[in-house]
């Protein structure tokens, strides 16, 4: 293990983590649609085929139920498959394998069977891909027991969480937002590129990261919205609103202590969520506080999320429903002033 580091995009950092584990452990393989020669539609496996060959980096038919199930069976027999669901939006064709099998076998077997696998999947919108290719849906996965759910926002975490996920003895869902990957062909955010240590390191699953310390308002969020929240925080600092940005990083387990600790300090909470508003992340974050003490909240909570509408295609409409910086800023100002 070296102490050097490189500046990588999130996508390259994710691949770096996979490659490190594939080099270390023969039983790690990467399976999915267009993950071989294509390198993953969103760059999640670029270069792996060249390095590890077609027996370990495997293109599948468009049969998500069959190949995700295959990964489960292989994991049960001791392999450590990483299997990609190209867009999370496609979960409906294969959710049974995911939630009724991958996630439940450990429990149903009384811990006698382990299912060490990673399910990777691309999430997020913002580029007019319409209602079936733009969703986040992490709330859907996090609601169902038995799978950990991680959602990196930056290159460092992307690699470290990937290594942790692969080494976990149970199933981990690893959701990468297209907008944080630093892809050449999408709108770029400067936070999608960053310092990534060479070699192995892990980021623990289940611990949030204070992305920015502040005292006025807590913004709890994940993924691309972390970038937006930090941008907004910089701007608001000029107006004397000192925003604390909490990057939750992992939805299961959820770092409830970090949420409560931050709100204890600020007394004000904004949850930013690119998933749908209702029955999802935003409510759970709020409840993490009210479970302990609703008195910590000195103002109504603002939930900046997709307002229970399919993601529209037209740019004007899509930007109206996504938690864009303008909506985040307005919410923080309102909560800070309340």
């Amino acid at each position, binding site marked *: 293990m070296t102490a050097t580091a490189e500046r990588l995009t999130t996508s390259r950092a994710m691949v770096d983590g996979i490659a490190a584990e594939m080099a270390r452990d023969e039983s790690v393989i990467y399976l999915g*649609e*267009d993950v*071989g*020669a*294509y390198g993953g*539609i969103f760059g999640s496996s670029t270069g792996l085929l060249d390095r590890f060959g077609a027996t370990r980096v495997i*293109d*599948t*038919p*468009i*049969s*998500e*139920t069959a190949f995700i199930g295959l990964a489960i069976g292989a994991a049960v027999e001791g392999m450590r498959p990483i299997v990609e669901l190209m867009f999370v*939006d*496609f979960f*409906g*064709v294969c959710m049974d394998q995911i939630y009724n099998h991958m996630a439940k076998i450990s429990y149903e077997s009384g811990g006698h069977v382990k299912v060490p696998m990673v399910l990777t999947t691309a999430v997020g919108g*913002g*580029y*007019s*891909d*319409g*209602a*079936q*290719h733009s969703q986040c849906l992490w709330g859907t996965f996090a609601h169902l027991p038995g799978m950990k759910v991680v959602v990196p926002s930056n290159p460092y975490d992307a690699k470290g969480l990937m290594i942790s996920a692969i080494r976990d003895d149970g199933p981990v869902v690893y959701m990468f937002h297209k907008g944080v990957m630093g892809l*050449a*062909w*999408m*709108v770029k955010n400067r936070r999608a590129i960053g310092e990534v240590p060479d070699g192995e390191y892990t980021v623990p699953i289940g611990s949030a990261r204070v992305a920015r310390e502040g005292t006025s308002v807590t913004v709890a969020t994940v993924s691309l919205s972390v970038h937006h929240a930090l941008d907004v925080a910089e701007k608001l600092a000029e107006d004397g609103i000192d925003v604390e940005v909490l990057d939750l990083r992992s939805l299961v387990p959820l770092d409830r202590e970090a949420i409560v600790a931050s709100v204890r300090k600020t007394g004000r909470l904004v949850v930013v969520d690119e998933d749908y508003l209702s029955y999802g992340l935003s409510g759970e974050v709020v409840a993490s506080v009210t479970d302990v003490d609703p008195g910590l909240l000195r103002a109504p909570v603002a939930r900046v999320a997709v*307002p*229970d*509408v*399919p993601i*529209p*295609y*037209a*740019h*004007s*409409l899509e*930007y*109206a*429903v996504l938690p864009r910086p303008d909506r985040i800023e307005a919410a923080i100002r309102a909560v800070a002033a309340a």
Partner: protein
Amino acid sequence: MTDTIDAEARLDLYRTMVLVRLFEEAMLREYHADKGPGFDIGKGLVPGEMHLAAGQEPVAAGVCAHLTTDDAVTATHRPHHFAIAHGVDLRRMTAEIFGRETGLGRGRGGHMHLFDPDTHFSCSGIIAEGYPPALGQAFAFQRQGAGRVAVAVTGEGAANQGAFHESLNLAALWKLPVVFVVEDNDWGISVPRAASTSVPSNAARAAAYDMPGERIEDNAVEAVHAAAGRAVARARAGDGPSLIEVHTLRLWGHFEGDAQAYRKDIEDVPGRDPIPTYEKSLRDAGLLDDAAAAAIRESATERVEDAVTFAKESPVPDPAGALRYVFASGGVS
């Protein structure tokens, strides 16, 4: 049930193919017009993924020639050729692709989500999941007893999805008036057919449902027309579903921006374009000359450019209305 085809029908096939091609060329142009500098998928008047069907015109033209707008068509993520061949209004379809309020879906849907109740056309971006709703349209038609049919389209990659199997079985079991069409363009994005499908022909799979299955080679529009004629007639007669697989051609990338580095047949692709081939056969048969061909192109160009102009001049949806139409009542709740 006859395999002969008259001159006017042949010219119609050609007209449809040309119209589709000119439309796809226009989309190609408009899509790339304002994506730069570099290529940003979310930019421009036509943002998002764009799956064009150039090369696959024979399938849509040959099948839809047998349909009226009372029949239903469910298409895929690559829907334009079927939409056009089935008679979806070109202006409103184009406006949808441009994300305008005048579009088929008032800009909410986009190019993978074209819904036209006037022609019973729809499509879906989820692989093979356009098949099941087609069964339901056929189910409703069966009860009406008026001989209407539903055509359900997928790619060859999609034929390995569970919905394909379930749909074929249910349609055969209930003798639904469906024609299943598989467009085999050799690729599912970067995955060649041989790496996805355990049999050389999906037509062979029809036997697993006691259903006639036919495979058309060489992207041959008249062979598609003939096979579809038989399948549609069978469905209209109440004799149940059929499957047709057409070996067609993806002339361009899977979607725009696809560099196709994986594609070994790439050199050879332009030479397999079905439109010049068919044009030549019509010329050879004395059905088409320079003037007639030019007139067909001209009229198609006019329609396409009219649609593009209509789209560009149409209003962008008001963000204030983003939540309308979630529910049938109009609002979000």
